[in-house]
């Protein structure tokens, strides 16, 4: 399709080595439907920018005054500016980088909450929110989990009702990583703002896939990952921090920043307050290029493209006998993440058949979000999750639907499910 380099998609070498399935050798390509775990393939701009850094720049940003160090620092700044432009952030220095969304969420949650504080979350949260909070609960933080509907939908009025005198923070994922359902972010943001509660958004699944504006949506803290819909490499992510919050947000780590070197205390200005140690500059070079790719494609166009493919997938799955579909069943209400099961088969059996017989790669199980599966009624077995990306083709969606149809038909016919 011109945007990507398809060399990486050649499946033949790997399947020959495995030698497990003669059918696998016929297909020369895999269909990658695990973009909610990490997007792949990446635009070629991403890895070319990384190669350029490794080959020609390579220095430590902000640690020395020489030209390569300055060039490295420019790359990091460009990455901040690209992220800021995409998310409606006025000051790019308020974007601090981290290894991933999990680290950013840990910074936000552990940095804000103190014993005696009350925090509101939804029942669709990922373990990157649940686990830091459950650890804080043992130290006296109170957690209110708002139950979402079985479709994963949140009633924003319940947020207002849950706010108490000691409510310090609201943490919500923008869209579920299990069923893709979007939460009404602007409504929750407005409620948080009116009540003086800090609003933290987990945008791991939506940054780059759905329009976000931190001002319009009244977001105070926004955690993002670089390697999903921002098309950067793994090991990149970050947190947007609203002006003024640095006074109450404790750093997760402290250390060398290349600034204020004569002092043994951590600097209080951004981004240095939250960025200690040598950063992942090669990763940020890739992230910067990935975000520029998103900006060049335009987010509304990316969203429209993914919404159409999601609707195609939902409609197709709904018409297959034996398929149990989860979530809103309405592409307008969700991102490109679709969960289903086939009656009579476990998610891992379905995923194994999809891979071995049809070269379709996706993820079974609980997707690090047990509470979300409890909400939608698929705990503890989980679901099969299909997550197309912007680079997935419509033709590939038809191949997937055909494959799921064949697997489901074998079960209803009473045949042996195993290939």
């Amino acid at each position, binding site marked *: 399709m011109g945007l990507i380099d398809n060399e990486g998609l050649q499946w033949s070498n790997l399947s020959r080595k495995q030698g497990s399935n003669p059918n696998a050798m016929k297909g020369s390509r895999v269909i990658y439907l695990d973009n909610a775990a990490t997007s792949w393939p990446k635009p070629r701009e991403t890895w070319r920018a990384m190669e350029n850094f490794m080959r020609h720049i390579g220095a430590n*940003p*902000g*640690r*020395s*005054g020489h030209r390569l*160090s*300055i060039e490295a*620092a*420019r790359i*990091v*700044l460009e990455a*901040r500016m690209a992220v800021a432009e995409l998310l409606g952030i006025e000051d*790019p*220095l308020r974007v601090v980088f981290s290894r991933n969304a999990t680290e950013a969420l840990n910074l936000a949650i552990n940095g804000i909450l103190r014993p005696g504080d009350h925090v509101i979350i939804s029942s669709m949260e990922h373990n990157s929110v649940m686990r830091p909070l459950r650890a804080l609960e043992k130290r006296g933080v109170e957690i209110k989990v708002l139950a979402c509907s079985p479709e994963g939908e949140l009633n924003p009025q319940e947020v207002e009702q849950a706010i108490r005198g000691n409510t310090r923070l609201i943490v919500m994922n923008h869209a579920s990583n299990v069923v893709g359902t979007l939460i009404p972010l602007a409504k929750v943001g407005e409620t948080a703002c009116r009540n003086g509660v800090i609003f933290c958004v987990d945008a791991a699944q939506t940054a780059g896939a759905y329009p976000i504006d931190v001002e319009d949506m009244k977001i105070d803290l926004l955690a993002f990952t670089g390697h999903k819909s921002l098309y950067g490499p793994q090991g990149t992510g970050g947190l947007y921090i609203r002006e003024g919050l640095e006074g109450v947000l404790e750093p997760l780590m402290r250390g060398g*920043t*290349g*600034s*204020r*070197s*004569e002092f043994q205390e951590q*600097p209080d*200005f951004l*981004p*240095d307050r939250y960025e200690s140690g040598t950063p992942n500059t090669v990763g940020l070079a890739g992230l910067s290029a990935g975000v520029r790719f998103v900006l060049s494609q335009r987010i509304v166009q990316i969203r429209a493209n993914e919404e159409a493919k999601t609707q195609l997938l939902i409609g197709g799955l709904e018409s297959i006998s034996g398929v149990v579909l989860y979530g809103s069943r309405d592409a307008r209400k969700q991102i490109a993440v679709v969960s289903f099961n086939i009656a009579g088969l476990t998610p891992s059996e379905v995923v194994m058949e999809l891979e071995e017989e049809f070269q379709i790669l996706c993820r079974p199980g609980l997707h690090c979000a047990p509470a979300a599966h409890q909400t939608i009624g698929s705990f503890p077995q989980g679901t099969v999750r299909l997550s197309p990306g912007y680079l997935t083709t419509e033709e590939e969606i038809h191949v997937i639907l055909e494959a799921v149809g064949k697997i489901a038909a074998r079960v209803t016919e009473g045949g042996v499910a195993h290939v």
Partner: protein
Amino acid sequence: MSGEKFPGGQKASYRVVLFYSTSGTLVAEKILKRERIEYKLIPVPRHLSSDCGICLRFLREDEGRVMEAIGGKVEIQDIHSL
């Protein structure tokens, strides 16, 4: 450093502006570039207190333009003559 000469032969007179972080310095650099104000990124002279390793040097006569361009956009730590 202040010994460079203008084409006319008189000595150039410089000012340097220091920022809290390299990121801040590079944001300011982008602004000066956009405004077409002549500048040079230089290592912070050792006799000045340094929060980050580099600073922006510009011609004294451009000080008004520099301040107007970056004022309110990037926090300035200090300004010195060279």
